[in-house]
């Protein structure tokens, strides 16, 4: 049975462990950048196309009746505006739910004159002249305030963009460190086999034959080590997804930490890249070593 010219190590070499750890970190960084990118999109899409009209209770006259009149007037304006596909006031329960974290239960707020909120949706792709709409709302309901969330969307987009670029930066640094580790491990391994390279050279092996024997050995080794690291990272994301499905909110305010199947597939790029780096490094190192021989 023909065996590989380069010996297969039975135990994991220390440098393989380093490659596994670096690949784990690289896969985590890829997952984090994917989650950050998804969060940026979700946040932007979630608020884009939404309008909120806040109608304050009038200072004069009956607050309840005045509020109801202004809400009705605002709804007429909204529903008659081209591009707005839906406009509806929040129910009392929804309003109470919103203020509960700050003002407590129903007992305290029962007698307070709460403003009324109207949610409106803009049809995707439609343009609404918000300045004109705000003016028309003021005319129909003087105590109304139009909020198109542009301020928050801008802030959230900036935050998400910062998160995504930070994740890319971390990913780049880890990728460089991983590439350097794989390259170093390959060179160290080759040094241990220098006598064998010299023997094969002496026996008349072409440079390509020797390089081929070594590059596939180190390709497989790096692929296995980095594959283990990426698999651990995938496990972390799967566990996070499982916990979130079970109702455990891992980190409040952050998007779900679980990766979708398509996103998990991106983690395969880590062992693939590690294997390619090892293969290239081994080939270049062997060819460089052979140039040193007569």
């Amino acid at each position, binding site marked *: 049975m*023909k065996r590989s*010219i380069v*010996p297969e190590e039975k135990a994991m070499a220390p440098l393989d462990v380093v490659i596994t750890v670096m690949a784990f970190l690289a896969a985590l960084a890829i997952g984090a950048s994917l989650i950050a990118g998804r969060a940026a999109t979700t946040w932007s899409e979630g608020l884009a196309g939404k309008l909120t009209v806040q109608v304050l209770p009038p200072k004069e006259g009956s607050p309840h009746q005045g509020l109801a009149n202004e809400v009705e007037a605002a709804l007429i304006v909204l529903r008659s505006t081209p591009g707005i596909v839906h406009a509806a006031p929040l129910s009392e329960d929804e309003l109470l739910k919103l203020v509960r974290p700050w003002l407590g239960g129903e007992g305290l707020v029962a007698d307070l004159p709460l403003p009324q909120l109207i949610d409106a949706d803009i049809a995707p792709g439609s343009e609404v002249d918000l300045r004109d709409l705000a003016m028309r709302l003021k005319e129909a309901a003087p105590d109304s305030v139009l909020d198109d969330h542009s301020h928050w969307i801008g802030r959230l987009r900036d935050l998400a963009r910062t998160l995504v670029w930070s994740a890319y930066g971390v990913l780049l640094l880890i990728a460089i460190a991983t590439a350097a580790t794989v390259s170093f491990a390959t060179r160290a391994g080759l040094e241990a086999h220098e*006598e064998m390279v010299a023997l094969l050279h*002496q*026996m*008349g092996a072409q440079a390509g034959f020797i390089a081929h024997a070594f590059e596939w050995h180190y390709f497989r080794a790096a692929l296995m080590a980095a594959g283990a690291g990426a698999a651990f990272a995938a496990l972390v994301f799967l566990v996070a997804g499982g916990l979130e499905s079970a109702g455990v909110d891992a980190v409040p305010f952050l998007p779900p930490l679980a990766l979708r199947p398509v996103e998990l597939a991106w983690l395969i790029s880590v062992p693939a890249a590690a294997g390619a780096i090892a293969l290239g490094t081994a080939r270049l190192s062997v060819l460089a070593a052979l140039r040193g021989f*007569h």
Partner: protein
Amino acid sequence: MVRFENVGMRYGAGPEVLRDVTFVLEAGSFTFLTGLSGAGKTTLLKLISIAERPSRGLVTLFGQDLATAKRSDLPALRRRIGVVFQDFRLIGHLSAFDNVALPLRIAGRHEADYTRDVEELLAWVGLGDRMDAVPPTLSGGEQQRIAIARAVVAKPDLLIADEPTGNVDSEIGARLIRLFAELNRLGTTVLIATHDRGLVESARAREMRLVDGRLVELRTPRP
């Protein structure tokens, strides 16, 4: 086959270990290279096997001047030479079979093509029942026989051997010399470096002796 003209060799800035060495090995010849330890035998073999480049002089191998040979031509020249190293240089994790088959793999032959040849050769050197053993589990003599089998398996045009019978008993030694003689009879040029006077005396072969890096031709067999 091999021509040396005024060849000198020094390592770095050290003294010359070979001086004005001139000789010719005709195709199909059988030659012993003798001399005391340190006389330069191993260095001479390294020059012939293209493991080293001479400091001066002209080395011609298979009609090719090595000074002007292209680097890309050297692997093909090396494949025409079988070398038995003094320290065997076997690959420790490969079986006896795979070690012997290595030159054939390097030559690009498929396993199915050479399996029988390798098995027959291993049986000839007395290791037919140790084909799957790896070198660390074999004795020095057994390792030496694997090294010899590896050197001859591709039927090289030139076989050079550094002390090939140093670790085997006289019976195996005689058998190995018969193997070399058989190869020689089939056309392989053979050069054996040895300390073994008995081996040299028993063979009707040319002897070249190195003394302090200079070559002294001692004996040429009578036709």
